[in-house]
């Protein structure tokens, strides 16, 4: 018995050692890559790719701040990235190992620099907007042909929501996006850090709260596609994926996405390397692989999100590059806003308010 234990331990220790030398561990958002790329990466580089997924920035951030996550590449959004950089969670990128950096798009890099000055710690993976996805048939049946599907009116005006409750409405469980959206609706600065201004959001949600079936950040993709719900406030590409799944299922569900005309939040998901990454070399290899124009285009063509890679644009299918919901016109881009991270004290106010909105206490 003892011998068996010894051999087992030795084998485990050995495999753990060899694993760190040949593995790259990536922690990315769910439904966020063309999985063929994983196999391609392994074939091209001979490295084994371990690919795990999450569906909220908060989960990722907790892993980063706890340290020792074991991941080589992680994908936080802009504001979260900024805070994690100041906590010392990431290592600077080594540009000499990233020749494909030349492919990146300056329009996006300028915007991501507000979270990561000089883009020293991260590269943009994808970006998108937070807006409204609707089941066109059901919504028009309930609200009529002129239903305001391109406006925050649809989900914040109680008159509309009372009717929509019948067919199911989901909101993102992401206060850092749902509070700015409500502020935008009432004409306040969506990036406000003033607790008194943020508190006004409660009154926006109070009359519509009972019409919201669930606050969740990933369930709505399937729920929309299956026709279980008719409205979801969610992320652009996720809703477009739902549209695609419904088309594939041929279930008669027609999904449309709009970034509301009053202004929608623009966000950036950035790839970065944790300070304690077991395999930083492998991480750089992965980043360089992702920044390859054709690979990045394959990912965007698959998940319907815009990317920060200029060179990839010639490989994008018309469905993606030509869709203003994914690549908005320059004029529409001006209507999008970005936010900055809340300081700890304000964060507590925001979380507390969000709990109150969701649970009534």
């Amino acid at each position: 018995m003892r011998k068996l234990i010894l051999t087992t331990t030795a084998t485990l220790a050995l495999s753990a050692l060899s694993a760190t030398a040949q593995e790259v561990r990536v922690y990315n958002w769910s439904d966020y890559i063309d999985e063929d790329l994983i196999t391609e990466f392994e074939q091209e580089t001979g490295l084994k790719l371990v690919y795990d997924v999450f569906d909220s920035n908060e989960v990722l951030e907790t892993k980063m701040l706890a340290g020792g996550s074991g991941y080589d590449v992680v994908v936080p959004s802009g504001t979260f990235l900024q805070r994690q950089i100041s906590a010392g969670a990431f290592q600077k990128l080594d540009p000499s190992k990233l020749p494909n950096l030349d492919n990146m798009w300056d329009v996006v890099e300028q915007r991501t620099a507000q979270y990561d000055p000089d883009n020293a710690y991260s590269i943009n993976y994808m970006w998108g907007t937070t807006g409204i996805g609707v089941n066109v048939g059901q919504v028009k049946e309930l609200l009529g042909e002129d239903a305001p599907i391109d406006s925050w009116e649809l989900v914040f005006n109680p008159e509309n929501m009372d009717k929509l409750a019948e067919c199911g409405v989901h909101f993102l469980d992401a206060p850092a996006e749902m509070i700015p959206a409500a502020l935008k609706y009432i004409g306040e600065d969506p990036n406000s850090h003033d607790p008194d201004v943020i508190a006004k959001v409660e009154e926006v949600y109070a009359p519509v709260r009972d019409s919201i079936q669930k606050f969740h950040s990933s369930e709505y993709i399937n729920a929309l596609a299956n026709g279980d719900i008719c409205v979801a406030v969610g992320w652009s590409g996720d809703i477009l994926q739902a549209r695609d799944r419904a088309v594939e299922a041929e279930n008669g569900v027609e999904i449309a996405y709009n970034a509301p005309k009053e202004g929608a939040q623009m966000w950036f998901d950035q790839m970065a390397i944790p300070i304690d990454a077991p395999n930083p070399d492998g991480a750089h290899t992965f980043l360089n692989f992702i920044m390859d124009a054709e690979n990045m285009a394959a990912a965007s063509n698959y998940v319907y999100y815009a990317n920060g890679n200029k060179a990839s644009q010639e490989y994008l299918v018309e469905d993606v590059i030509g869709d203003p919901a994914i690549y908005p016109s320059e004029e529409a881009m001006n209507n999008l806003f970005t936010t900055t991270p809340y300081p700890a004290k304000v964060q507590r106010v925001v979380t507390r308010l969000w709990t109150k909105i969701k649970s009534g206490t």
Partner: protein
Amino acid sequence: MRRAALILTPYLWLLALFLVPFIIVLKISLSDTALAIPPYTPTLDFGAGWQGIKDFVGALDFENFTFLTTDDLYWKAYLSSVRIALIATTLTLLVGYPIAYGMARAPEHWRATLMLLVILPFWTSFLIRVYSWMGILSGEGYLNQFLLWIGLISEPLTILNTPVAVYIGIVYTYLPFMILPVYAALERMDGSLLEAAEDLGCSRLTAFWLITIPLSKNGIIAGCFLVFIPTIGEFVIPSLLGGSQTLMIGKVLWEEFFNNRDWPVASAVAVILLLILIIPIILFQRNEQKQREADG
């Protein structure tokens, strides 16, 4: 020597798996948040020697516990968790007891198979089983389709994302924890006692109330605790099956930890949760001990 080792083992077990983690959580609950890895301060620095330990202890305080009293969210969440756990435990007992009773009354050669059937679901991941309930309970789910098909309802019922779904999930998940101890108690019961009661003029129902229930009392108590204790801190079932209005302390703890990044307050919430749970755990232990003594 051997005897000392035997006695020591359970205490070492308790020390390693309960006391040490608890002290770590307690320590964090007395700290302050910080934007760093790990996200709280102070951290213990043994390098600084005695002075380091003194500074460390000096920086701890009970601020986070007083903070919990300033917001009614916390006690409401504790209370709501206890309420949900109580209702769920009662429901599990109502569903589990007849099953255990039927198993104990089944022909002997059937019992092993029935027992296997009760345990079988554990061979599948808990998460997958809860997820499959989402498929069953959703608006377009199997349950609604079935009820529509047999014509019992004309509009799909909204069950998913309501407290009803949470209770269904809890009862389903914890049912074996209720069935097994009740079954063990019922199986040991001497059947001739019931015959004697009937001979003396008891109806079957009265005999059940006067003989079977009291004799299975210990099984019922054990089953109720085994369901009640984990249900209070339950997080997965309410977050997957429940709506946002289902307020449970597990969710509040999650939010403190993940949304506020406030490990110290999250730890304070956990410490209080543990203190609340210690009461039923001690009662449970006492019941077990009494039973052992009675069994001789």
